[in-house]
């Protein structure tokens, strides 16, 4: 079945350093990949979504590239900000199903001054 793997449970960074959160997946068909961000006591919000035409989505300084050859969709940002501290979830949806979103275990990012 479909699955998403996020290897970092906790990530602690100093403000200004680059961010990279890993996401790999297993899927039978061609999936959509997403990154969601969840701040403390809030609902998850969509951060990025993969494109089918190999464009690189960007939002709030974050970007991610879907690499089908390595089944990865890593999240990156060149310079971390204090406000980036949150939980980040990678998720996968099979194209054509419209029904199931599989989430990774999440990565808690803490950015300190």
């Amino acid at each position, binding site marked *: 079945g479909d699955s998403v793997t996020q290897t970092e449970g906790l990530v602690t960074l100093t403000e200004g350093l680059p961010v990279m959160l890993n996401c790999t997946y297993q899927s039978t068909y061609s999936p959509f990949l*997403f990154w969601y961000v969840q701040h403390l006591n809030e609902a998850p919000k969509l951060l990025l979504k993969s494109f089918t035409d190999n464009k690189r989505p960007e939002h709030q300084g974050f970007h991610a590239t879907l690499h089908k050859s390595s089944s990865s969709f890593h999240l990156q940002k060149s310079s971390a900000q204090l406000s980036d501290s949150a939980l980040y979830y990678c998720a996968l949806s099979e*194209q054509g*199903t*419209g*029904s*199931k979103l599989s989430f990774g275990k999440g990565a808690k990012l803490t950015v300190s001054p």
Partner: protein
Amino acid sequence: AQTIHQWPVAEIKAVGSPLSLGCTIKGKSSPNLYWYWQATGGTLQQLFYSITVGQVESVVQLNLSASRPKDDQFILSTEKLLLSHSGFYLCAWSLGDAEQFFGPGTRLTVL
């Protein structure tokens, strides 16, 4: 613009008592609707989804049930709460295969 509303915002209930959580979507016609559960410190677990009125599919059995009585309404319920039901319940919507958007959530504490 579409809005998603969940009620109640928070609930404290006794073990063995019944529960009903609600979700309404305004501004979208015939959305797919979803229920998720998130344990404290845990990841998001999809519980149910519904593609159309009156049809609900179960993804994970947690002694909960869901119903979609109207196009814009999704209800999560149980007759007897367990301690393990505590957590954050999130409703979400999507149009077909597109990304899902989450409501503000209901925080449930079972004592």
